[in-house]
């Protein structure tokens, strides 16, 4: 049943189509939309099972029945399904939140169809095995998110929305440029085929690919909001309504991370650098390792310091997600630097795999926790009309469940055991220690301290103490509390029973580094 590969994509697509004509029947539209989210979750779960049950762990689906290097191929492996699982959970939570969290008139316009189209784009990006197709899915995802950010924000945030849209439009042009260059150099768009070509090509032929892949990396970094491409993040997240901000921070950012892991650790990892400062026979990752490291350090510092100085909860969360993405890139940097010389297989128990595992665990944790925090912030702003700290205060007394959820989400990002965030942070430190890199350890420590600082500030100013006037009279909608509480429970459960998440992430990391397995699965032909 390889049709399962395309199932999540189709579910989201048809939900988008089904919610379009229902715009005049609000209740029905909401019901169909949420039902679509549930079916999406079920489809993803079925796909996860199918991938786990499959012998080599790769489900290859050739769209239109064109054979692999020529047609567009969808590939579901451990890495893809891990990210899809995160998407399914966060998007369903955000949908339930949207029912009450988006003003009725906004929903009556095209909110639900656009939302599901965004999920289509995300799903396609995670599944595709074709680099141009990746661009198309990025565009689908971004087009919907532009509209969601721009048209559902107030007039005063138009400038932020403009920045978001224009920067990403430029990013898309650059992405297309690099893809065109890659096609001209390698003669293929299929990721597996490209990996095969790069593995065999001598250094002299891969040199242009290095530049193109660096350009492509800048685009992914822009989408993921990594320093120095982070400047659109705070404004856009503040401008977007809470469920959309949760999706952007929790899932859309991870698409950038996924693309980095997939393309750089699976495809470009096998290419040989020309002899130079990185020694003979070094892979591309030897070049990207220091780049990742610098950007991760920048993200952690900028995000952390920026978050400490915020006066409102939304801004704090937005800066915090810049810093947290730094924590995801940091182990990737260590992993990239540790990749052995070209032609040698990456060991399953080495620093490379561990680093990617750490990044993935952290991604899942951040996806859940950050969306939870955005939901809390959205619930407050929907109820109170503001999330400035000087208007908040005493939420924990007025609504313990909501405040408790925030507390758990914040603790998860800080990394307190037994929450899932602890293991994420622990793995990052573990990777740094094994690599013997004091820089990594120092930066991670600094980032951890900053995280503690800004969440302590948020908690003390927004949630503790006597209720402010606004908070005392507020009544938070139950569905908001429910969504936040469910995610909080999920974070606790994932942390207490950490084994399965680690196994999933580890296998995903394995599958990201096993270029040969990927190439064989795709080009070997499922037909």
């Amino acid at each position: 049943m390889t049709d399962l590969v395309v199932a999540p994509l189709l579910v989201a697509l048809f939900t988008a189509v089904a919610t379009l004509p229902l715009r005049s029947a609000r209740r029905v539209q909401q019901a169909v939309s949420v039902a679509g989210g549930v079916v999406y979750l079920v489809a993803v779960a079925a796909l996860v099972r199918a991938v786990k049950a499959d012998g080599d762990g790769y489900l290859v689906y050739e769209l239109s029945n064109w054979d692999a290097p020529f047609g567009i191929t969808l590939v579901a492996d451990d890495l893809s399904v891990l990210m899809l699982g995160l998407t399914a959970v966060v998007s369903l939570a955000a949908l339930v939140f949207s029912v009450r969290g988006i003003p009725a008139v906004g929903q009556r316009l095209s909110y639900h169809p656009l939302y599901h189209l965004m999920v289509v784009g995300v799903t396609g990006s995670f599944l595709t095995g074709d680099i141009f197709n990746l661009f198309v899915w990025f565009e689908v995802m971004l087009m919907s998110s532009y509209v969601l950010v721009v048209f559902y924000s107030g007039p005063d945030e138009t400038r932020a929305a403009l920045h978001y849209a224009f920067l990403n439009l430029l990013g898309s042009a650059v992405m297309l440029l690099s893809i065109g260059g890659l096609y001209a150099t390698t003669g293929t768009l299929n990721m597996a085929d490209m990996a095969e070509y790069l593995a065999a090509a001598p250094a002299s032929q891969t040199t242009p690919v290095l530049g193109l892949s660096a350009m492509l990396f800048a685009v992914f970094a822009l989408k993921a909001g990594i320093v120095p491409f982070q400047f659109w993040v705070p404004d856009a997240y503040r401008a977007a309504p809470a469920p959309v901000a949760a999706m952007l921070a929790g899932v859309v950012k991870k698409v950038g991370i996924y693309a980095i892991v997939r393309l750089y650790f699976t495809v470009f990892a096998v290419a040989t650098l020309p002899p130079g400062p990185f020694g003979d026979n070094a892979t591309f990752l030897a070049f990207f390792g220091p780049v990742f490291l610098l950007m991760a350090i920048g993200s952690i510092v900028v995000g952390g310091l920026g978050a400490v100085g915020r006066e409102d909860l939304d801004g704090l969360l937005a800066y915090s997600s810049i810093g947290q993405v730094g924590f995801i890139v940091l182990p990737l940097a260590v992993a990239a630097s540790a990749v052995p010389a070209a032609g040698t297989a990456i060991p399953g128990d080495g620093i490379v795999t561990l680093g990617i595992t750490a990044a993935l665990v952290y991604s899942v944790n951040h996806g859940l926790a950050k969306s939870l925090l955005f939901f809390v912030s959205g619930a407050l702003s929907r109820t109170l009309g503001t999330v400035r700290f000087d208007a908040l205060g005493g939420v924990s007394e007025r609504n313990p469940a909501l405040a408790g959820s925030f507390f758990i989400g914040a603790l998860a990002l800080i990394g307190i055991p037994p929450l899932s965030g602890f293991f994420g942070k622990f793995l990052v430190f573990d990777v740094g220690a094994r690599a013997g890199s004091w820089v990594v350890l120092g930066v991670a420590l600094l980032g951890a301290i900053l995280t503690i600082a800004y969440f302590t500030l948020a908690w003390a100013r927004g949630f503790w103490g006597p209720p402010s006037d606004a908070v005392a009279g507020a009544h938070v909608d139950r569905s908001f509390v429910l969504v936040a509480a469910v995610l909080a429970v999920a974070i606790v459960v994932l942390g207490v029973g950490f084994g399965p998440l680690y196994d999933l992430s580890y296998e995903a990391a394995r599958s990201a580094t096993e270029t040969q397995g990927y190439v064989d699965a795709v080009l070997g032909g499922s037909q």
Partner: protein
Amino acid sequence: MSALAAALALQQSEPNTQFVLAVVLGLLFAIGTFLVLRRDVVRVVWGITIISQATNMYLVTMGGLAGSVPILGHGEAADPATVANPLVQALVLTAIVIGFGTTAFALVLTYRVYEEHGTIDLAELGENPPETGVSANTGSTMDGPEADPEAVTTADGGSQSGTDSSAGTAGVGDD
């Protein structure tokens, strides 16, 4: 792959087209970049459009410049060496459609900016003073009145109720 090699070989045989296209591409990118850096939003949109069109052109040149039309006709098969690479043309078609959508969106967005702020100057947009001192957060929309549908005008959604309570840009402009 062999078609590509052939296409590359052909490119080398036609240095003039190659040169002209390279110059044109460079010019287009230069114009686009110049426009993107302007303060006028409409100019920025034009700049982005020109850059994406230049990208499309660049993609086409990647498929080989000389040679006959890509799709082989009926009957006697043409020598692959004389045929341009068809794949990039398919890519460009896709990219054109996407670019078309984004351009339409960007123009609608510009129109909305003009409608809401009465200006399309990016710098003037930035210095909009906060009116009520409430924050620039999602609250402003979330909290927007469950307004009458008549207040809504844009194509692809979005409340333009304009009565949104808070108008602060506090904290905006961190970049």
